[in-house]
């Protein structure tokens, strides 16, 4: 999966089938079935969160788990669960401003 490897700041990735089987993996998450199992049970848990705040047809499309210096981003695409572990580098204030302005320029 070259496309997963090209994600900036990526330090590991996993692609799972809907039943939790590992399809491809790389970096720090290479063949990490422990993480895969935890993520699959997390996805099962998040099926219905709060009926009062979220409509029953409102589904989550992204989960992120953020630690101090890295994070995991999880999303479902093409019937596969994609998990990326990314390094977090603190942005300088000028970079932050630049990022905020990017969508406006585009």
């Amino acid at each position, binding site marked *: 999966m070259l496309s997963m490897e090209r994600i900036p700041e990526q330090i590991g990735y996993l692609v799972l089938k809907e039943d939790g089987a590992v399809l491809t993996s790389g970096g720090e998450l290479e063949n990490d079935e422990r993480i895969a199992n935890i993520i699959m049970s997390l996805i099962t848990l998040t099926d219905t969160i*709060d009926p009062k*705040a979220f409509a029953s047809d409102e589904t989550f499309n992204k989960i992120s788990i953020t630690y101090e210096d890295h994070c995991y981003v999880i999303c479902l695409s093409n019937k596969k669960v994609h998990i990326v572990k990314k390094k977090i580098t603190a942005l300088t204030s000028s970079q932050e401003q630049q990022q905020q302005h990017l969508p406006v320029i585009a």
Partner: protein
Amino acid sequence: MERNLEKTMDNVTNVEGVIGCILADRQGLCLGAKGSASGQSAGLIAAIADEVAKLEPESNAPIIALESDNRQCIIQRQGPIVGAIYKAISP
């Protein structure tokens, strides 16, 4: 003690974009819910925090964010308490 919790929850729900918040204890029992949040989801939120804690047991508790098209649910454990904040995402 309840008064402190109530005040904290009021402060949180008064922030722009926040539609509700909920606090649960270690067992997943509801300590309080404000705004558009139901006490029934306290157990689920504590279970999510527990499940994620298994990822990296040595690291500090992470922030878990669940995103739908126009809402966001942010969960974090702070000591014996798990808190969740529901936010509306502005386009």
